[in-house]
């Protein structure tokens, strides 16, 4: 434990102390027996989860909705991201590069939830604004990843085709795209996995899927239904985790 480590610990400890103080934690109120008891009662209301037939059907369609939102959003984002990535990689000059990079940074800095709230204003409630919101944010993320992949890819194949008289777009598709496409697909799949989790929660602001179901059931104090929705979310996340681990082992 050297001096640097000790200093780090002291600084971190100090920051932590300040944070706790700032939040004015009502620790006395939080951990009294009465509070814990009421918390326990609240949790108990969640069990057993609602597994009635009609609700299970709603749950199933909510799951499909969540999966559809995430898949469509990722697909749209991949296409849009690739289109914006070409100028962002500098293929059209400096000014377009800066503009494209700015757009991508703006898109990926705004959290999906904020986009969802914005989209709900623009398009009402339902899965459509959720899809748009996820697509917008993911375009920023994928666009940046694609642009980096494009920058790191050799230019010679496309240039050789240009020197043989090929038009620019064809040279790109025949010379550059085959090199970056596998990487782009990998990024998109990885992002889809994350988006499934995100799509499940976007519903909180009314953007469809399991999240909206959860919000509704909590608002209506139907804790048992809420519990079923949470379990469904957990199941999806675990399934996607396993599936992607399997896929990665197969492809590696």
């Amino acid at each position, binding site marked *: 434990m050297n001096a*640097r480590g000790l200093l*780090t610990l002291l600084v971190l400890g100090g*920051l*932590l102390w*300040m*944070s*706790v103080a*700032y*939040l004015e*934690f*009502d620790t006395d109120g*939080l951990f009294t027996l009465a*509070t814990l008891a009421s*918390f326990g009662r*609240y*949790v108990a209301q969640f069990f057993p989860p609602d597994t009635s037939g009609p609700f299970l059907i709603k749950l199933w*369609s909510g799951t*499909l*909705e969540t999966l*559809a*939102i995430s*898949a*469509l959003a990722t*697909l749209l984002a991949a296409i849009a991201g690739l289109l914006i990535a070409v100028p962002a990689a500098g293929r059209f000059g400096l000014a377009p590069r800066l503009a494209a990079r700015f757009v991508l940074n703006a898109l990926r*800095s*705004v*959290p999906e*939830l*904020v986009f969802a*709230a*914005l989209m709900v*204003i*623009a*398009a*009402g409630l*339902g*899965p*459509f604004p*959720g*899809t748009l919101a996820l697509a917008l944010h993911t375009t920023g993320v994928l666009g940046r990843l694609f642009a980096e992949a494009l920058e790191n890819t050799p230019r010679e194949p496309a240039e050789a085709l240009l020197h043989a008289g090929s038009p620019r777009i064809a040279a790109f598709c025949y010379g550059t795209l085959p090199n970056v496409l596998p990487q782009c697909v990998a990024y998109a799949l990885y992002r889809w996995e994350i988006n499934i*989790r995100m799509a*499940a*929660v976007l519903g*909180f*602001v009314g953007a*469809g899927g399991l*999240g909206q179901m*959860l*919000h509704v059931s*909590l608002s209506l104090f139907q804790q048992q239904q809420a519990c079923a929705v*949470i379990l469904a*979310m*957990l199941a999806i*996340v*675990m399934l996607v*985790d396993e599936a992607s681990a399997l896929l990665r082992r197969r492809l590696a």
Partner: protein
Amino acid sequence: MQLSAAAPLPARRDPAALPRLALTLLALAALWPALRITEFNPAVLFEPGNADTMARFLRQFVPPATAPDFLRLVGRSTLETLAIANVGIALAFLIAFPLSLLTSNALSKSAIGPARDWRARRALRYPGRALLIFLRGIPELVWALLFVRAVGLGPTAGVLALAITYGGMLGKVYAEIYESSATQPARALMQAGAGRLQAFFYGVLPVALPEMVSYTVYRWECAVRASVIMGFVGAGGLGQQLELSMRMLNGAEACTILLTFLLLVLLADAVSALFRRWLA
């Protein structure tokens, strides 16, 4: 002049044609129901009512709200967000650390020979792993929502939600770090007769510490972002302010808060990079 003596080849069809066609048809078959389920309809964006509201909201973005009272409020919310992230990560670490010790294979005595307490260890390891998966699997926003219902609006809900989800993530990654970098020193020490904790502190920790710190700092950066998002459902900080402003359709305030958020994220990025370099 013919160099090869092979017989002329029969005309062969493109071997990739059928799989490609099948894949395309499959994708199209999946696309149609997806479009229907998500009620994909770009025309909705241009419906008069919606377009007006959106346009009005966006027009208010410029200029962003700069009243001193509001800026003070935003400043306080930003500090609150940072505080939520700090305390949340600290609690997450307290949850993750013991769980990682419990579940990591690096400290497995059974790997080097029969251990007396192997039944007890296994009885602890699997539930430990299941707990980590459960903590990680439920999105932090769901935890935040639940805690808001349970303990009320405000930063407490955010801190608890962060502590739980990030505890799960940190626990899993710590366990993997032990296994990938420090299994050998730990086993060597245990073979020489050291107990598990001793093996950990003398064998594992020195090797694993840099990676652990690096990942924890990265998670802190994510926590700052997550705190804002959780605030959106009432867990305090900048996010809660943003939700209020958007609910009031106050575009100017929303714009200020969004800009603050962007600055905050950039700051966290810079601090995290600096910190990691300072430690290296």
